[in-house]
């Protein structure tokens, strides 16, 4: 648990989109899925997930509907909309560029004089 990384601001949305892109999920499911695909490396405050989900629904990136979970409990399931899919592609590309740039910058060795 202790070696989990704090989430950068703004990245939670991206993670949610990614998690949901693999198939419709309910909130807790999304949490588990993020844990699974990030190999438990990220620390997410569980409750913080929900305002983010509501925001994404409001922006039209996700759509939600009530259904029944594997545990036979009522739960709200989320899936990507077309707009959400597009946004995921864009954000992924942008993230890749940023990550590459930062990685490159950090990899720079001090020049020998």
């Amino acid at each position: 648990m202790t070696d989990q990384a704090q989430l950068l601001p703004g990245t939670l949305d991206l993670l949610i989109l990614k998690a949901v892109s693999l198939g419709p999920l309910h909130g807790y499911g999304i949490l588990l899925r993020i844990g699974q695909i990030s190999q438990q490396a990220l620390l997410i405050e569980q409750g913080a997930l929900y305002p983010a989900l509501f925001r994404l629904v409001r922006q039209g990136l996700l759509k939600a509907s009530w259904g029944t979970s594997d545990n036979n409990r009522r739960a709200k399931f989320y899936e990507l909309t077309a707009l959400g899919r597009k946004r995921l592609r864009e954000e992924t590309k942008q993230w890749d560029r940023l990550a590459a740039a930062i990685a490159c910058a950090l990899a720079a060795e001090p020049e020998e004089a």
Partner: protein
Amino acid sequence: MKLFSYLRSLALRLFRRSQTENDIEEELRSHIQHRAEDLERSGLDPAEAERRARIEFGGRQRFQEECRDVQVGNSIETLAKDVRFSLRVLRKTPGFTLVAVLTLALGIGANAVVFAALNGFILHPLDLPRPESLYSVHRVTDNSSNQSYPDYLDLRDRNRSFEDLAAYNILQAGLDTGDKPTSSWLLAVSGNYFDVLGVKPFLGSFFHRFDERGPNSAPYIILSHAFWHSRFHGDSGVVGRTVQVNKHPFTILGVAPPGFRGTLLFFSPDFFMPMVNQEQLEGESILQARANRWIFMIMGHLKAGVTPQQAAADFDSLSADLEKAFPKEHGHWTYALARPSLYGEFLGGPMRAFLSALMLLAGLILLAACANLGSLFAARAADRSREVALRLALGATRLRVLRQLFTEALLISLMGGALGLWGGVMLLDSLRAWNPFPQFPFYLPVTPDAKVYGVAVLLTLASGFLFGAVPVRQVLHTNPYEIIKAGSTGRVGRRITLRDLLLVTQIAICALLVTSSIVAVRGLGRSLYGDFGFEPRNAILMNTNLDMADYRGDAVPAMQKRMIEAMATIPGVTSVGLVDWPPLTTGDIPGANVYKDETTDLRPTNSVAPSLILRISPDYLSTAHSALLAGRNITWHDDKDTPNVALVNQAFARRIFGAESRAIGQYFKRRDGTRIQVVGIVEDGKYENLTEGPKPVMFLSFLQSPSSQMSLVVRSNADPQHLAGAIRNKLHELDAGLPFRVQPWSQAMKLVLFPSQAATVALGVLGVMAAMLSITGIFGIAAHSVSKRMRELGIRMALGAQRKEVLQAALGRAFKLLSFGSAAGLLLGILATRVLSFIVYQATPRDPLVLAGSVLAMFLLGLLATWIPAQRALSANPLELLREE
């Protein structure tokens, strides 16, 4: 089942909020339960698992609230928050708030009032069933709707277009309810009148077509609701009572419903009576006279499927038949259908044009007000750019900031709208209660109904969004980091902006209105002191109709002679004259066709010209100060026993005889064949209204052509108040049962002056409003440009710039806009006065005083608006300014 689904939707609506609340709650609970089950599976006991799941989840309450905020972004709470914040902001700048609210109140109030007038006069004039198929029949040929009784009966029974045709005439009569007889206005109507219009009695019953069984067979009257209240104090026992109308007994049958005032706007009669009883009112029966077109208007509902054009064609062919059957009484006439409420196109055309123009102006004023407020808001948004930037930097979305600005705009517009509407309704109330003409039952149909309120609310919201939208682009392009770094001085714009364009338009409208109102005021001034061919000042009129006391035949001129003699004995009276219709006191003086002496076939088409007829006493001309240009005056010897003579005016002489010099001694004929010799020529004047051209008029001796309608013109050097009392006493001595009215001639002219007065007042009010708006507009732009450039001005001064140069730098732009807008407005104003000259006497655009006045007004306005900013610019102290930054 239906009821159930209705209840459900009602419940849903009521519990909607808690539904979303429940939704969120359930979702969060579901999450915690899922987690707890997972924890349980990993070996924890249920209670511990539940506890851990809760802890891991974090502050449930907080997340739930955050979710709700996201979910119901536009909810009442956010709105309330915005409103509270806006109110706080507005309270902090009371000056700005006051100016903005007042500006808008003026704009919206003006629009509400003008729209109420438009609504009352044009859009929704008559509160009657099926108003869309109600039409009146008008002759196109002589632009009138008058008919004779026999013609009315023929048209009613033979037309194939109307369900039924009703007729009415406006009359004045003495009504005696037991105490003092008073003069009342009434409508003499056909028996089917109320049935044709579909009006139901408020009390008692109405008369019907089957009540008419020949002349004087229906001695009934119906009271109007207002008259029933004022004269009979709303006593429901009046039904069945007998009253005296012109000394003949009439039975009160019933009371008309509250909103019903006949079908002529402006006019509110006291009671209604059947026109078959006309003889009892007027002394002689004219029910059989086909040539006497005394009925004011005929009207009815068109049959289903008949268009007004088809109906007009129907009447054209009926008229052709009547012309063949009665060639002496009929001309070749064509017909058109119109709305009865404004006397067809006669009043309807100018009214519609004038009110539409007013509405347009009011709309432009509101637009100008919005432009102003938009500029003010934009300027404020610029001044507040630091605050906006800070909020953006702190994470507020641009949407949220914009919404807050819109809330402010809407709050101001709502306050302004409410204030404006309140003022407008007050104004309308006083307009309705207002009667500028004591001799005429005048009524302005300007009731604020749902439509008026709806339009006001719509305009309020629309203007709020309109001026609220001006700073949107500004906010959207705000870059928080730049502004916080650099401060808000920013750059000075040089290019022409939308704001400049709006301001120029606004100044142009203002200049247009200022020019128009100066033209109107000038015209009004001229019309009060103009040359009418008589002198209304210092002359008192005593108006009455001897029919009201049942004088007949020779008794009429005899009584009139006694009255003249009695007046002449009042101390201080210098002269007394008699005339049946004093010029410029009624819009409609009776006239007749004039024929050349050699014409023998006296059908209307053979006449030379129509002429107005005034019956006068020998002293009338000298009393009215009308000049006799040639020939001799009428004398006391021109009576029944001597040949008929007439004085004519210059227009008459020119039209009938070709030249003024040829007229004296010549004869002309009237339709009944009477030959009349012209003995004198009177100067031209104004008779029916101020904007009319020269009209032929003949003056007949009241002894040769008696008329029970009469006015005495009394000129004296005594105090008018005292004189009026003396006149009353004298008349009372002569006949205590005769109703009459005493008033100064100039006051009696109010009816004729009313259109130009109303136009002047309306234009004046709009002009003042436009001026106020322009002042705030120019002030806003000048003040803004000065405050933005204070530092620059300070540097200029430090470098030795003169006052003139500083002013030019600070206010040059505002002045450029002002002069450009003024020039455009003046040009428009000059064009518009052509339209005005139809309403206002001698409204000419080429009046140097008007042009000078307009230019001066606009200059003063500019001076006033830029005074404070200029002072501020001049007071720029370079040292202080530079230190400040």
